[in-house]
């Protein structure tokens, strides 16, 4: 009797959990290492900067004595690795230095500017997800026929257009000519400062304090840049969805589902798409992260007071603390989001790697 029963499942649930934990630990280690690399690069950039950090503090009329004192204070006489450790220590304490331009701590500036970027990137990513994914699936299912061609052309054009130029043209058409939406900035000037910033995300703040006029105005300002940024997200997500989906549809298990007598829509959404979704998590994470930084150009075109514009302006004013601080924060967000999506991917995919 015992003869015919097959083997056991090779991994019990306990073991599976354990290896899942190990792989999560791996993600954290790699996050830490990546972050150290990130800071090392910004540190090097900061050191290579043509500007003299001491002069930036004391001004060029200071005496040699004062200069030397600050030089020692900054630890510039110490070996490079000590300086780096000091730099790390400051970072961990949240000390990104003071901005020359605003005369405020860089961290405070960033906290003020960041919500605007977050708002823009979030709306754009949502657009990419809710429009891009169905488009990609549609294209894959009708591979080689007209829905596929249309989706392909849209995503290729969306992928190829210079975003800052697209923004300018959109402003010309929809704001200047048609007047459908509000122009650059986050709000019209006369609404400025009415709503107390709670979350920093204007629409939320406005809605919370019941200022619906402001809510509408904010929305009207947001639509255009979010659409422009969203086009890029949509193009990328649709394209990846299409290729993942094509890949899955050619798998053997799809044939199995059809052999079972399953209706085609269930084969597509119930079987193929489930596998695609697992892969898409990483792609969506990547899109979101890259929109946080890709908004530099969009923010410039739309005078959107976000972190991208902050970094650009600081760059032109030789405000290096602000540039490096902004880079670190955006980089950390980029790394953090990618790590989160990686974690999520590992939790969702039953096939734990290795």
């Amino acid at each position, binding site marked *: 009797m015992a003869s015919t029963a097959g083997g056991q499942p090779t991994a019990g649930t306990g073991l599976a959990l354990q290896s899942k934990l190990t792989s999560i630990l791996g993600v954290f280690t790699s996050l830490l290492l990546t972050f150290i690399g990130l800071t090392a*690069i910004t540190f090097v950039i900061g050191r290579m900067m043509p500007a003299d950090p001491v002069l930036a503090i004391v001004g060029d009329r200071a005496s040699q004595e004062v200069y030397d004192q600050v030089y020692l204070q900054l630890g510039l006489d110490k070996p490079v690795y000590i300086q780096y450790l000091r730099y790390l220590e400051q970072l961990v304490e949240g000390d990104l230095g003071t901005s020359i331009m605003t005369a405020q701590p860089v961290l405070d500036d960033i906290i003020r500017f960041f919500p605007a970027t977050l708002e823009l990137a979030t709306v754009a990513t949502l657009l990419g997800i809710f429009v891009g994914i169905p488009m990609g699936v549609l294209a894959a299912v009708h591979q080689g026929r007209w829905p596929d061609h249309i989706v392909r052309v849209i995503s290729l054009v969306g992928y190829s257009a*210079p975003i800052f130029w697209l923004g300018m043209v959109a402003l010309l058409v929809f704001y200047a000519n048609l007047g459908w939406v509000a122009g650059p900035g986050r709000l019209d000037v006369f609404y400025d400062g009415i709503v107390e910033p709670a979350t920093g995300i204007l629409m939320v703040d406005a809605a919370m304090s019941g200022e619906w006029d402001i809510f509408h105005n904010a929305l009207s300002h947001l639509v255009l840049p979010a659409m422009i940024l969203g086009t890029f997200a949509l193009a990328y997500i649709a394209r990846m969805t299409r290729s993942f989906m094509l890949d899955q549809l050619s798998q053997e298990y799809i044939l199995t589902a059809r052999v079972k007598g399953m209706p085609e829509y269930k084969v597509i959404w119930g079987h193929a798409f489930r596998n695609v979704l697992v892969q898409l998590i990483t792609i969506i994470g990547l899109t979101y992260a890259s929109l946080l930084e890709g908004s530099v150009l969009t923010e410039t075109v739309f005078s959107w007071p976000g972190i991208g514009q902050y970094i650009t302006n600081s760059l032109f004013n030789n405000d290096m603390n602000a540039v490096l601080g902004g*880079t670190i924060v955006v980089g950390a967000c980029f790394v953090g989001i990618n790590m989160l999506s990686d974690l999520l991917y590992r939790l969702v995919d039953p096939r734990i790697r290795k």
Partner: protein
Amino acid sequence: MTTEATLRGWLLAEIPTSKLQARCQRVFIGWLDFKRNPIAMIGLLIILGLVVVAALAPWITTSNGLELDLANRLKPPSSQHWFGTDELGRDIFDRIIWGSRITLYIVALVSIIVVPIGLLIGTVAGYMGGWVDTVLMRLTDIFLAFPRLILAMALVAVLGRGLENAVLAIALTTWSPFARIARAEALTIRNSEFILAAQMQGISTVGILARHVTPLCMSSVTVRLTLDMAGIILTAAGLGFLGLGAQPPTPEWGAMISLGRQYLIDQWWVPTIPGIAILVVSLGFNLLGDGLRDVFDPKSGN
């Protein structure tokens, strides 16, 4: 007619009789495949057009695109100035044509820097495995994790503004995906039996990497490179737009948009034309890359 027939016959002969013929046949059959793909062909035509225009710039244009003609400022498109003139009276058509050289220059320079580095790091990491792989890939991940445009901006801040520094900054942020791709290919290749067979023959590691692993990475690297060229062009244009790339009066398309920005409402052609140029060229690379992927991908092929 007959020479064409014999050439075709030679290229399609059932039994090749020399190494040269076998190679040419491979390329030719690939070309036949490629030709059937309309997307790739459109892309190829755009890119060929770009190259031809850039090569023939002195003969196509009437000016060097730099000389001022203040009497003819901001003239709309006409038979004399096909794309109109800019705020300093320069012919936009001529500037676009000269700008194509800059675009090609950027793309070529970045590719020359990026591909060898990516291939070397990727194949070595994937093939050797172990701690070599761990170290190299960690390094790659750090660069991959870096926000591309912002790192490029920060680097330009250090190195100073200008085209060459922009290229260097872009290259520094572009090589990592190539290392990733090459590694992924090398990983799948390294345990295949033909690599074991090569080891069995006593072929050195360098020989295996150069003659066995690298050629197989080339198709995916080529596809990625073509697709990335669009990204490179857009990043370079973005840097130019921000004033961090090529400096005026260089006719770089991104910088042209940036300078023409204030004339958008009344003289739309000044910033719009260079934008279209960027769009077309980057679309060309994307189409070509997409088509190449279709050709190289065994699944969509036979």
